[in-house]
């Protein structure tokens, strides 16, 4: 177990290294001459040269990458070339809203998945209804969901605000903050629930239909709650939990869109602005944060999976 974790940690570091190197090369190759971009078309050659020297743009990419990596290891992500604001500060400002949004979305997604799965298991007709609804929801892009929610709850019913972020430290406090986060969380959470439900439902079905220990439990006359809680659930939630972990990675894409629609000042909005203004340090700092987070979450998901489902411990080691 410990060896496995160490192995995974090494793999994690390699993946983060490869991704940041690829991102660094990609961004630097594609962005063209950032100095010309920043100074405008009418910049004097002297000014361009001075900025080149200041930003070390004349060094080979690989050297600049290791310079950057060295700084990163010391906790320095540089400053924005546009606003000259330290990237670390921008990140610490952007992380809380994004984090809250993701938690909210997971709560919505998991709740919906558990409720619909329970309904799907209980009756035949709800099963068809629920899978149909899941397929429909799966086919609606996140930004369409967000706009529909705004039309219904903000512009028509005037129930919820369409701007999604109120700092908990502001006058409204946490109450206002949470009310404002309802719609963004639902918009993002709806997108993930069909996948959750699919995996949870098929895992539970499989246990109920195929496994003999369930039949035995029924024959012993155990109460249904006990069969589900004690026997079926631990064997079924493993896939679901690793799903939650891998979905967090996919959530980032939705985060960019939802933050844009609801004007939430999180990482997604920060990245979008950085892409728009070719702000390389902010872009790389954001990417590093996201990739590290995704890789860690995946590892945690896998470990929990192994902890819960004893069968995996034996078979999954080399996967």
């Amino acid at each position, binding site marked *: 177990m410990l060896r496995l974790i160490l192995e995974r940690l090494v*793999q994690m570091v*390699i*993946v*983060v290294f*490869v*991704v940041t190197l*690829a*991102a660094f090369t*990609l*961004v630097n190759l*594609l*962005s*063209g001459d950032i100095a010309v971009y920043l100074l405008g078309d009418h910049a004097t050659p002297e000014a361009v040269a001075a900025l080149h020297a200041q930003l070390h743009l004349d060094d080979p990419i690989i050297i600049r990458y290791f310079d950057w990596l060295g700084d990163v290891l010391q906790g320095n992500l540089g400053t924005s070339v546009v606003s000259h604001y330290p990237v670390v500060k921008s990140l610490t400002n952007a992380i809380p809203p994004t984090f809250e949004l993701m938690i909210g979305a997971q709560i919505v997604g998991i709740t919906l998945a558990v409720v619909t799965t329970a309904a799907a298991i209980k009756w035949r007709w709800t099963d068809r209804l629920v899978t149909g609804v899941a*397929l*429909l929801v*799966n*086919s*609606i*892009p*996140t*930004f*369409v969901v967000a*706009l*529909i929610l*705004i*039309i219904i709850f903000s*512009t028509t019913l005037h129930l919820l605000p369409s701007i999604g972020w109120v700092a908990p430290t502001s006058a409204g406090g946490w109450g206002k903050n949470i009310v404002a986060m309802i719609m963004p969380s639902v918009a993002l959470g709806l997108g993930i629930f069909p996948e959750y439900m699919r995996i949870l439902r098929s895992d539970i079905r499989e246990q109920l239909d195929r496994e003999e220990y369930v039949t035995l439990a029924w024959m012993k006359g155990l109460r249904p709650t006990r069969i589900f809680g004690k026997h079926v659930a631990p064997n079924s939630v493993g896939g679901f939990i690793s799903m939650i972990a891998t979905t967090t*990675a*996919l959530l*980032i*894409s*939705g985060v*960019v*869109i939802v933050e*844009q629609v609801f004007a939430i000042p999180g990482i997604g909005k920060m*990245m*979008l602005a950085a*892409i*728009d203004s*070719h702000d390389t340090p902010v*872009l790389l700092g954001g*990417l590093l944060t*996201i*990739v590290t987070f*995704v*890789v860690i979450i995946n590892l945690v998901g896998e470990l929990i999976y192994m902890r819960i489902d004893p069968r995996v411990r034996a078979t999954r080691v080399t996967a």
Partner: protein
Amino acid sequence: MTTATRPLGASVTGLSDADATWVSGSTRGRMVATLRTWRRAILSPSVAFPLAVFLIVVIACFAGPEILNLPSPIVGNLNDTLLPPGSPGYPLGTNELGNDELSRLLWGGQISIIVGLGATAFGLIVGSFLGMLAAYSGRAVEVVIMRLFDALLAFPGLILALILADFLGPNVWNTILAIGIFGIARFGRLAWAQTIGVRHRDFVVAARSDGVPSGSIVLGHMVPNVMPTLLGFALFTVGTAMTIEAGLSFLGLGVQQPQPTWGNMIAGAQQYMSLAPWLLILPAAMLVITILSLNLVADSLRIRLDEER
């Protein structure tokens, strides 16, 4: 592209009864049997209905503007802005620049469909090539390719697509490229897993010990076994690719106005949400109908072909 020669979702490890008959049958007999299975599956109502809807959308988008002799989607009349649906001369109304909404919807659909299919094809071809190469070569090649897939998967997809689209310059081809790269790792891992499954099956080992060249083994034995699963997955991916395209256009980094796509039409309509809600509802509805029909085809086809086995 070759059509699939084995049912979707076929098991790859061990030889089931169906597999045994399959292997022992004549080549011609096998082809006929497969075609029959597919025809039965496609003609079943749960597949045929959504498929028909999708085909109608495709035909309408590509042939509609020509047949209905619609005005150009980008040369509007500024005297006729924001007309509601049903206005004389504009069956679905006009947008804020007086462009015919029906014409924009159909032209916009062309972009969505081209990008959806193009990006899927790109991911499928590059991904399955790399995945099969990894599984077939093993050793260092496999390690490098699989770690590459890991890195690609750890890369937040939409952000990668946004960076590529922005830096390469937003147009149809770059959008296809940006979204296609997103799919490489997914197709690649699936192709790898499937190839691993057949790599040590008897027919491959037999061919190899007969001295059949690698190329022929891959094309003759592996591709036919791996492709059905990949094509089934590709059906799902088309809808995803269309969603991402719409997202990119919505964020302003896909195909640019005035050229319409469903995504940038929805983005543009946001400002007129209360004044002209149809500008938002129509493209959103088209997008959802198209993606839903595709997902239904993929889902029902999978269920059908599973049942056949």
